[in-house]
């Protein structure tokens, strides 16, 4: 069991955004976190990476929790944020170096991985540039390189497809596939449902801070009694039902 969230209640201020969220991600599995704007996807991810503290409930990663073993817990996580976040003062090379230092990676091994990733995303000739001046898509690629270079057991990927060119989307999906094969658990939030349908092993549908439904595509289909619908259609039905309630 990699990531396990149990009865999580949490949010930004006193008012809980998440109400009793329970989900898990197994090693080598890609779980898609799906929901409308404001459903609580990013809030859930922020709890997992430790930016927010749960009001109640627990989050454990391979048995470790943030409260008891903060450093070991963080060591296992790599994160690709929804909006790229970069240091204005660091070059691309230094972003990678800083990540290596922070995670205590062996520079030789890590640089080998980094060069491969940079090549895939056509950033290998921009090592001495300040990525703060890059375009949105290129910044996103920098974030991906930093996260995928680590040995993290859990990858948190928040809405990764916006701003990426089609080639990069494809490459990213390949990289996720590769990580899965290496036994990494991946939790990804997204609105791009046809891609999610193709690549995710399981889905967690969030609505108004609660888990509305979860399971594989087939399980979701059974749940709504709609045998041949796509994820997109199932999701639209569920979302409309919620609005009518």
């Amino acid at each position, binding site marked *: 069991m990699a990531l396990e969230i149990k009865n999580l209640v949490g949010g930004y201020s006193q008012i809980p955004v998440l109400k009793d969220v329970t989900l898990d991600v197994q090693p080598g599995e890609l779980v898609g976190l799906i929901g409308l704007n404001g459903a609580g996807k990013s809030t859930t991810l922020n709890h997992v990476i430790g930016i927010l503290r749960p009001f109640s409930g627990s989050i454990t990663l391979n048995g470790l929790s943030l409260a008891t073993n903060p450093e070991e817990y963080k060591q296992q996580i790599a994160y690709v944020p929804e909006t790229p976040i970069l240091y204005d*003062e660091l070059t691309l090379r230094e972003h990678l170096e*800083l990540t290596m230092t*922070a995670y205590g990676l062996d520079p030789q091994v890590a640089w080998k991985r980094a060069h491969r990733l940079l090549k895939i995303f056509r950033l290998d000739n921009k090592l001495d540039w300040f990525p703060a001046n890059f375009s949105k898509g290129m910044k996103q690629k920098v974030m991906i390189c930093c996260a995928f270079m680590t040995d993290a057991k859990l990858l948190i990927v928040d809405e990764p497809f916006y701003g990426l060119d089609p080639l990069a989307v494809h490459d990213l999906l390949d990289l996720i596939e590769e990580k899965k094969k290496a036994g990494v658990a991946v939790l990804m939030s997204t609105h791009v449902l046809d891609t999610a349908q193709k690549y995710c092993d399981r889905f967690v549908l969030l609505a108004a801070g609660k888990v509305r439904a979860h399971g594989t595509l087939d399980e979701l289909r059974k749940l709504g009694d709609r045998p041949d619908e796509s994820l997109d259609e199932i999701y639209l039905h569920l979302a409309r039902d919620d609005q009518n309630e």
Partner: protein
Amino acid sequence: MNKLFAQRRQRHFMLLLKYWRLVFNDHFVIALFFLFGALAYGYSQWLPQLGPNLWWSRWLLVAWFTVLAQLGRLATLLERPDPVFLLPQVKNMQIYMRQAGTYSLILALLMTATGTFVALPFAMTTERLTGTNIALIFLTFLVVKASWLRLAQAKVSQEGRQHLRLLRALQWILPLLVALACWLINPLVGLILAVVIEGATLTRRLTLDWRLAVSAEADRMYSIYRFFNLFTDVPTVQGNVKRRTWANGLIRRLTIAGHPWSYLYARGFIRNTDVSGIVIRLTLLAMVVVFLVPVVWLNSVLAALFIYLIATQLMPLFDQYDGNVFTHLYPVSFAQRQADFQSLLSKVTILVAALIVLASLGLRLNWLQLGINLVISIIEVLLLTRLYYRVRLKKLSEEN
């Protein structure tokens, strides 16, 4: 739409008021008062030593008034979203810009008058000035400032866009010409020239260039924020970044291998023009001051004061990166981060103190002064690193 500028001005004043209140609450201001006091005292001591007919006095006045004309920029109070939201308002924007022009002019005239007032004692010592002359000088440079602002308006117009370099040059050349005429020939000639120039810059209507205007205003606001940032944390100030490859050696020295926070702080400190800028400027100023001040006790007090001031200016770097989520993700303890920051602070403070002590040798090679300042600064640096930084960091971490 006609009320927009008035609303903006109101909001701008409220903002300034808010920050001024913070400024006067800060101990940094006490130090500035000291510095201003020392400068004013020095100025008054210096004047009697000057005789009439010094060859350089007129040139100094020319330089002073040319630079003075550059103070007080065009305040349009435009904001980033304006080009999108106000795009259809073509006609009304001209009214808006006229109001902005008037507002800027009033502020600029106040600054020019103050600057002229400061220069007068010097001018009256070295030149023979009648009451009429003084009035003429005031008038001349007020007119010059008005023309300067008109050029500034042209710089953010579609008509002026192709001639940016020329306009920028004119903003220096025209005041220089007037200053030359005023001080080398006669104040009356200066005034006539200023009026002629004013007439020539009174051009036809200009169409606003949104892109230039918004970025010019952002620059202006940024420099205001940066000033306030000396005293208090201004959230909008993030500082510009310069690569400074020449400082790579220094960065390496400041970095502790294998420590991510040290890696980050060293680069942030050197490349962010905000923190390093203020440290460099204050250090240079301190070096000049201790180099020039001959009174031993005053020299030592100033040296100690400057080292303390510079030390306080380093603190905002500590939570500079709190907005970056990754700094919360690194598997590194908070104590480690504190230790790394303290190590950077110590290194920088020692370097700064060493430079200031070295400068206190002065023109006359006053070794005694250097010795005294050395002892004082060693004690001060020890106090700062052992006591002050520890207390401040503790306070900062409690806020987190």
